[in-house]
């Protein structure tokens, strides 16, 4: 039975960086001759990453523990992009009633699939109806 040695910790100081960029826009047009239009949207990109891990071994004799950690940092990479767009149009039918139709899309793109699996997904919706005021 070989000796049970405890060599202490291999260690490194790593940097972590997060970056979030968002653009948003919107427009409201009308009412013109009974027509109205509302548009809005946003684009967001979120990223997070560690610097390369280069563990300094605590003891020269620990050759057996000389694992390669150079790719480990990439396993925690986060990179998400979300694009959303919503629109709604209205048309007056009478003085107190109007018809509306709307549509939208939210698209979430997971560009660094790891911890939670692939989180990519999208929702597209359409809606229509009648609104009355009294």
């Amino acid at each position, binding site marked *: 039975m070989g000796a049970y040695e405890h060599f202490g910790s291999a260690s490194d100081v790593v940097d972590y960086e997060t970056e979030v960029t968002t653009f948003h826009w919107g427009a409201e047009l009308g009412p013109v001759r009974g027509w109205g239009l509302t548009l809005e949207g946003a684009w967001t990109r979120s990223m997070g990453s560690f610097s390369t891990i280069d563990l300094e071994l605590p003891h020269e004799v620990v050759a057996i523990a000389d694992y390669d950690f150079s790719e480990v940092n990439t396993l925690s990479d986060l990179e998400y992009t979300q694009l959303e767009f919503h629109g709604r149009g209205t048309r007056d039918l009478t003085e107190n009633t109007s018809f509306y139709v709307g549509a939208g899309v939210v698209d979430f793109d997971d560009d660094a699939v790891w911890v939670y699996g692939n989180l990519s997904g999208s*929702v597209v919706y359409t809606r229509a109806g009648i609104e009355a005021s009294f």
Partner: protein
Amino acid sequence: MSRMIWMVRLVLPVAGLLFATGSLAAEDTEEADMLSGTAAIGGSVSHVEGWIGRAAEYGLVREPLESQLDLMVNGRSGFDFMEVRLDHLNEADQSARAYFRSGPWVRAEFDHQLYQRWLDHDRLQNVQFREWVGFDSTGADRGGGKMVTHEDTDPFGRYGFEHSETKSRVDLLVPLPEDTPAVLKMHAALRDQRRIGSRQGLGVDHCANCHVRSHAVAVDELTRDARVGLDGTFPGVAVGYEATIRDFNNLAAAPTNRYMEARHPANGGSAAEFGSRLIYDNEELEFSQTPDSEKIGHALRASADLPHNQSVRGSMAFASMENQVTGLELKSNSSSLGWYAPITKRARVSVNVTRRSIENDPTDIDLPLYRDGRAGGGQDFDWTRLSAYNREEWIGQARAAYALRPGQNLRMDWRMHTTDRDHVELDPDGSDTRTTKNRLRAAWSGRIRGSTRSRVEVEYEKTSLPFVNVGGLCEEEIGGTVESIPGQPNDWIYYFQRERYGTGGNLPTQAVRARAQLNGSVGSRFFGSGYVSVASEKNDDLNAYDFERSVLSPGVSFVLVPSQHAALNGGMAYSRIESNAKICATVMDG
């Protein structure tokens, strides 16, 4: 059944208010009476691809045709006013709000929100590794040593819960004789929160196979709050009291995890030896449970006007929260006193002092003897857990504002915050438990030219002994031999003999933060604004590394109104945060 109860609770107050409105409209025929609103009915069709937990984190998206109902009604009669709003999309996307006011005497509010919240599902794929033990005949790496593994008992599980929150509040003006120079108001409020669904729970074996097992865990939590209070306003003096009681009930069945039989992590043998090092193994136990709790609180506040437009304000609050399973109790106290005064026509100052304290019951941890019955074993590691919550805090703040000239103001404030934790040592070289943070902030705001305004704020913060994990990082080397345990070889090392030396943390001892903002318009059709925030923080009192964090966050936005029938808006925001941390990986042989 519970859904039916919720719907009844939702409909009754709303129906009552609608009935009241009908009476108002029918009985009052004066021109001031008014009943108006909007109603929308329609349908919605959606299409979903992939996982919607992020694309629609707060929504239950149904692909088939869904009906949509939105209703808003408001009415006024004399001094009475009411408003009702209802929005319904599906069984997990509803809201209702009702508001009623009868002159100064009665004000009643009801609010109900129901929505779906999706949760993540950790795939655990990073928990999968086998120790390298050599090379095979082809020269390739050969695993076969210790390992970490994972198991997902619900690999296709999609987790989330339906969150409902129902709030109601009534304010009453207490009738007093007409010439009484006082106003008395009573209020009572209720809030129910319910979360029903599922989440991910992780059961972790240690010293068996470093095995993490994922389970679907039922969520059924009910939190109920009730508040009653009395407020009085007298000439120059105002006082108020409020009592609060909160019950948290975990109604879900406790999840269980099968903890594997302890054995050697590589060869599967030595079960008796490894089992003797653990508190439990080879049995199914409950895990990941939030206990029921009850909280009772009292709050008292008072303010008084002083000569020369000065005033003082004070408050006291006490709360007690009991864990209904263990009987452990946490008590908190807070009190504050503030003085506000205009010194001159251009200058005003304020001073506040606050004291807060938390006392949490200790609890005895009764452990079986370590390696009981084994050679060199029998160590008793029973201990008493003293809570890290226990603390006394003092917060002092002084503020001064000075009007340089019309439209331009200069503000200075100094804030000192001390936190003395009873049982958490923060100094790696001593036993001090007190954090002292001083912050000095200066801000200027004013008009630069025309409608262009700006605000610039700079602060410097210095902290002595911020919260850190003393001796919590990186293990010391114990190569060769250690003090031998009777009956054991002198080069065998057990967990309780290992030591850590590194002190780490992510709170700064020094920080400089600044923010600048600029707003302006061009004519009457364009309005724009921009800002930039920066921060530089560091802690060089750690022994394992120097912590640093920097923040850069600029943004711009605009509104353009080219005509009375068009409005455009847009903007951009950016944020970059850089920080560092120490990573440690224990290395041993055996």
